[in-house]
């Protein structure tokens, strides 16, 4: 297990470079991301097993996620708490080479398109997702649940969800509203135009950015509690995993989400509806909310998840979407990485070398690089 300390900054996101087998980028935020600066670290894993900092940039607000460019080996984007998205170049010190400011609230996720490679997507607490090209100063497309993408006269999408009360006094809430917060949006590794997203009102949503009405599938995934993370299976194009504050990781086959499970323009999903379709598999074990879930790039049945319970868990999903009656009972949790001493937020599988290597980061200011096959 190789450690690195991001001194003074609490880790939020970590990702292996798609170009160099020894390079990591880590998005961090001071003061646990509640208030203050952020810092993006570029780390090198040396041949002798130490991890050293190559460079880093400080930002005005905390950084909550990052995505390496798939077309430029020196570029990496970062999602900031002030609503901006920044593009950094490893050869340019001190300042980002691009800064996009369109989101009006915290950006919680950025993800590069693995197929098209020329664009990436961001997801924000302002309830929208935006697709960007690194060459363009403005976003290419905005995806949002409440928005009508067809015509001005028939607001199809907005009727799919009942609007909040029009009475002023009924709109005030003593609680912070995260219902519209999109925590994670990820491009499919199988299609250049398909995106999965999860939000604070427990929905998993599948989008096609080519379609005039991009929202394709929409269902309640975590019993009305917040859904925090989602990822595509790298081997099975219709299989996704989602994770949320109900402490579960759920595996879904998108072909099995029927129209009945989804809100419809003429029969909107009632506001009290918190029960969704049945997942293909459910992985239980985390003691607190699951913050991130990721499928292995080497094995279509393996995934890892990070949680506020300070652990990273390695799971085996034995569910067989082709024949559920053949499901083996020997899946489940295959290992627990308990090295972190605080919330674990970010993780990434290495694409390189022997399968199974993982990097994780969290609030204990630590980045650990470890082998998920050698956990006790």
């Amino acid at each position, binding site marked *: 297990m190789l450690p690195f300390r991001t001194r003074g900054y609490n880790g939020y996101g970590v990702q292996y470079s798609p170009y160099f087998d020894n390079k990591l980028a880590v998005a961090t935020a001071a003061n646990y991301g509640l208030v203050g600066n952020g810092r993006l670290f570029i780390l090198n894993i040396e041949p002798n097993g130490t991890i050293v900092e190559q460079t880093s940039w400080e930002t005005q607000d905390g950084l909550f996620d990052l995505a390496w460019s798939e077309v430029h080996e020196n570029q990496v984007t970062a999602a900031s708490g002030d609503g901006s998205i920044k593009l950094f170049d490893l050869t340019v010190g001190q300042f980002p080479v691009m800064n996009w400011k369109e989101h009006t609230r915290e950006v919680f996720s950025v993800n590069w398109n693995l197929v098209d490679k020329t664009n990436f997507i961001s997801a924000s607490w302002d309830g929208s997702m935006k697709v960007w090209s690194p060459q363009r100063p403005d976003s290419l497309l905005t995806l949002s649940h409440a928005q009508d993408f067809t015509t001005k006269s028939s607001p199809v999408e907005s009727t799919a969800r009942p609007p*909040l009360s029009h009475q002023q006094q009924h709109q005030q809430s003593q*609680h*912070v509203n995260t*219902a519209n917060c999109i925590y994670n949006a990820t491009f499919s590794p199988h299609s250049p135009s398909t995106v999965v997203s999860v939000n604070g009102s427990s929905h998993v949503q599948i989008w096609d950015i080519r379609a005039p009405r991009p929202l394709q599938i929409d269902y309640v995934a975590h019993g009305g*509690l*917040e859904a925090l993370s989602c990822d595509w299976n790298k081997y099975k194009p219709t299989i996704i995993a989602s994770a949320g504050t109900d402490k579960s990781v759920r595996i879904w086959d998108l072909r099995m989400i029927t129209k009945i499970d989804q809100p419809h323009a003429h029969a909107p999903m*009632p*506001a009290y509806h918190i029960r969704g379709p049945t997942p293909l598999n459910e992985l239980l074990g985390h003691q607190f909310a699951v913050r991130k879930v990721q499928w292995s790039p080497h094995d279509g049945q393996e995934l890892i998840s990070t949680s506020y319970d300070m652990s990273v868990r390695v799971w085996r999903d034995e569910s067989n979407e082709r024949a559920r009656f053949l499901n083996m009972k020997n899946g489940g949790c295959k290992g627990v990485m308990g090295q972190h001493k605080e919330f674990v937020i970010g993780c990434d599988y290495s694409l390189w070398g022997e399968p199974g290597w993982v990097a994780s980061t969290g609030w204990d200011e630590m980045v650990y690089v470890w082998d998920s096959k050698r956990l006790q």
Partner: protein
Amino acid sequence: MDRLQQLSGQLSPSSKQSLLQKNPDDVVIVAAYRTALTKGGRGKFKDVGSDYLLTELLKGFIKKTGVDVNLIEDVACGNVLNRAAGAFEHRGASLAAGIPYTSGFIALNRQCSSGLMAISEIANKIKAGEIDCGIAAGSESMSINYGPNSLPNLTPALQDNPEMQKCLIPMGITNENVVKKYNISRQKQDEFAANSYNKAERAVSSGAFKDEIIPIETIIAEEDDDDNIVYRKEIVDTDEGPRKGVTAQSLAKLKPAFAADGTTHAGNASQITDGAAVVLLMRRSLAEAKGYPIEGKFVLCSAVGVPPEIMGVGPAVAIPTVLKKAGLTVSDIDVFEINEAFAGQCLYSAEACNIPLDRLNINGGAIALGHPLGTTGARQYATILRLLKKGEFGLTSMCIGTGMGAASILVKE
């Protein structure tokens, strides 16, 4: 600090936030009122039936709320003792009160939860989109209908069936079973009962019930000096059940009523009482469009089964069930109204669910106020809505004869 609150919401997830949201398709409570509760057999309602109570209360209710009666699409009324749960006379009562014949009527009987089942019935119809506005009520005259006539008719072939026998155990005996099984001392029961009397007495003398009671006119039959029966009219606006100066010591002197070695007696069991209660429910979009005030939001109701011989434990099962279904915990609930059929079963249920007693039956319960069987569920709504502050959660629950429990959750707005 939004980010901090967001994080704490993720760490201790609760459905509280989403239940507090106001959506146009919510079921909301526009108004809930009740009559005064009077003593069975000798109180001021002793000479009028449940139909009369319902009519008079509905008249007062319509006047007080100013609701457009043409909006009412269905009326559900809970009742236990009338023949056929009052299907005939309560339909008549609703028409007599001025609700048009275009509105439907359904008589409901799930024993002591009938009033709550009426609320659940109307709320579910609104949720399902069958109706937009309905009245849920409960009306009971124990003076007239309580007694040997309320015993069931059984086929002789089934009479000795042990399961059937369990459903025929008198309620007092089921409570003796509960206190024996869970070791609840007479001392504890009497303290609980005295506390209920004291809380209710304080509420009556401080005028806490003024807002929830609609005064109605009653007819009392009296004999004059020549032994002729004369009818006197009188306005009733005060509960008769609560009495002053009840202490655990004074209750300790009472003899057990159901078993020689028992602990249940007249002072720690619910009273035999007459009364009615009415709740007006609407879809939020309709209430807002028509400009009616919104008192609260109905969240969920659950009914569960328990062994008939210890039916008093019903709330101990129903409360966790409804909380789990709503995604809440006991600590999310600010006020509990659990029917005090008997001190023993109510105390057991509260303790089994870890309900703090200072949030339970704040204005006293059925031991002091009385338990008009089919009315109680709706009566609790009239009471709890006055005890909750804006944004607080309330829970009502009761045990049900023949072995059930019911519980419901609402939010004050």
